């Protein structure tokens, strides 16, 4: 049987709770709306806040905070298999919390790697994000990260720009993190207008490109090293790699 949930963390935790209640595990886990074969045997999971709260309570109580956090991080890795492994991971941990220390176990190792991928994407995204300054002074950045790191990015940028207003827009997932100088929230974005920049924006982008090219030492040019640090998939919205139109 394929279990289908809405793709949210809450939805997934409901699914885990359901698995305990029904004493079964699914053959496959799918996000709603996704390509599901007509002939698959489906079970729809509706998010139930009460189940979520209860499960979270148990997890928090029983698991090492390190592993508790790891579950949330690994979930954001957007890999089609991760939910299934996480279900196993949570069940294993709730049965006997000490089992999760054995990183030579393939699934436990896999969840560890998922977390690592998410955190490394987060680290890169925090560094490679490029803001443009809009007419009203708001900082605005576009991105398309390979993992869903937006929910983890607020902390860093709220600290960095505590007195500014900023928007981080994940074009790939249609989400935007908005900070108004006091509080922050993530919204789904369906449609948006092309924003108006402040007058100097072009000028500073040009100065940055100038600096970026100047700082490289000719006799050390090494594109493959550059590529391994700044992979192509991140470059799309990086000012220094953008083509001038």
């Amino acid at each position, binding site marked *: 049987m394929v279990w289908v949930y809405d793709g949210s963390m809450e939805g997934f935790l409901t699914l885990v709770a359901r698995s305990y209640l029904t004493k079964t595990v699914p053959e496959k886990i799918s996000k709603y709306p996704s390509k599901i074969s007509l002939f698959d045997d489906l079970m729809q999971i509706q998010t139930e806040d009460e189940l979520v709260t209860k499960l979270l309570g148990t997890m928090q109580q029983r698991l090492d905070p390190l592993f508790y956090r790891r579950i949330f991080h690994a979930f954001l890795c957007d890999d089609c298999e991760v939910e299934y492994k996480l279900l196993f991971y949570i069940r294993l941990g709730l049965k006997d919390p000490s089992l999760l220390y054995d990183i030579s176990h393939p699934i436990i*190792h896999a969840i560890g790697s998922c977390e690592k991928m998410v955190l490394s994407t987060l680290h890169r995204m925090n560094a490679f994000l490029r803001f443009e300054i809009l007419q009203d002074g708001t900082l605005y950045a576009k991105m398309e990260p390979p993992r869903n790191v937006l929910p983890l990015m607020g902390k860093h940028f709220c600290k960095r720009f505590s007195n500014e207003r900023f928007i981080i827009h994940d074009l790939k997932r249609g989400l935007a993190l908005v900070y108004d100088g006091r509080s922050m929230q993530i919204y789904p974005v369906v449609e948006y207008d092309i924003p108006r920049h402040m007058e100097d924006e072009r000028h500073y982008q040009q100065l940055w490109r100038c600096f970026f090219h100047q700082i490289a030492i000719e006799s050390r040019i090494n594109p493959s090293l550059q590529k391994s*640090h700044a992979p192509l998939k991140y470059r799309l919205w990086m000012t220094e790699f953008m083509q001038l139109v």
Partner: protein
Amino acid sequence: MQIEEKLSILSGSAKYDVSCSSSDSQRSESFGSLGSTYKSGICHAFSADGRCISLLKILFTNQCIYDCAYCINRSSNDIKRAAFTPKEIAELTVNFYKRNYIEGLFLSSGIISSEAHTMHLLLKTLKLLRHEYGFNGYIHVKLIPGAPEELIVAVSKLADRVSSNIELPSEKSLVLLAPEKSRTKVFEPLEIAKNHSMEQGKTPIGMSTQMIIGATPESDFEILRLSSALYKKALLKRVYYSAYIPVNNHINLPALLTPPPLLREHRLYQADWLMRFYHFRYDEILDTQNAFLDERFDSKLAWALRNLHFFPIEINRADKETLLRVPGLGIRSVHKILYVRRQKRLSLRDLENMKIPLKRARYFITVDGVIAAREMRGYERLESRLLALEKPLPHFQPTLFDQLQSISGEI
């Protein structure tokens, strides 16, 4: 002169200074509302040479009254000169910072009219940034040797890190190539800054220096001995090594177009790392007989090959310090091993599942008494086996273009 042209001249001149990192800021007070410092540093971009860009690295000016032989900015060179104003630097820094291009500023300078005057201009820039613009990001400043004490103290109070470059690893070379400088003179401002922060009972401000490699005949042994002494005195947090790229014709310097000794520089960084994090002493890594690092192997592997009596090491029993001496095992692998070892005895399979890199390490460890490199009985032919594992390193050729750029451009 347009700001873009200034930026182009004065960042081109600063690029050979390698201390770009923004890490290790321990500043407790805050200067304003724009920005924060992040404890492990952030590389915001990677330039075409693959190096990390973390800071807006520029010279205040490339004018200089000194005449150091290895520097393109030396007074006797006929090159285009430029100077920023404090306000221009502040605007650039803040605007780059807000766009998330950089973590902060790295400010250095040639000597314009006098040491005191130059230091004063740098101080003015820092005051503007910290007090007027409320900039709270990272700032690294080059101190100007010979500047008055009160200016050095004032600058250090506003910066996250200060440095002063020794440039040449021995006094003899300094006399020959940079007659206006001496080791005492170069370190004097660092001593002042350190003593001052100690008097205030604060954690001392982070300090670093840089040495040019390959311009003068000093051996790696002499270089590491100097670094080790500097770390011991706790004067410095980092010593940076910079492969020399010839920019001037001079009888006491390598000819123009001599390739920079990049591999040597790389090996020196590895050896430095062994001293700072793996508790190796400089005279374990090299000695007067072996005064140069083996360019074929990384420094730990080279050490292991000269000390085979230390191996093999039992992975289920060895302590942390010992594990760290196994070639191929880094801090992370060692922690993983110690961590899982608390739960169970490790088998070779477990090590593989944990993704411990065994390519080199397996020759130096046993797992439950059995040597991990199964095909091996003794240590004969070990060196050639290991050599076969090394990737050929890319070869670098300087281009004519490099002569147009400056080598160091700061004190």
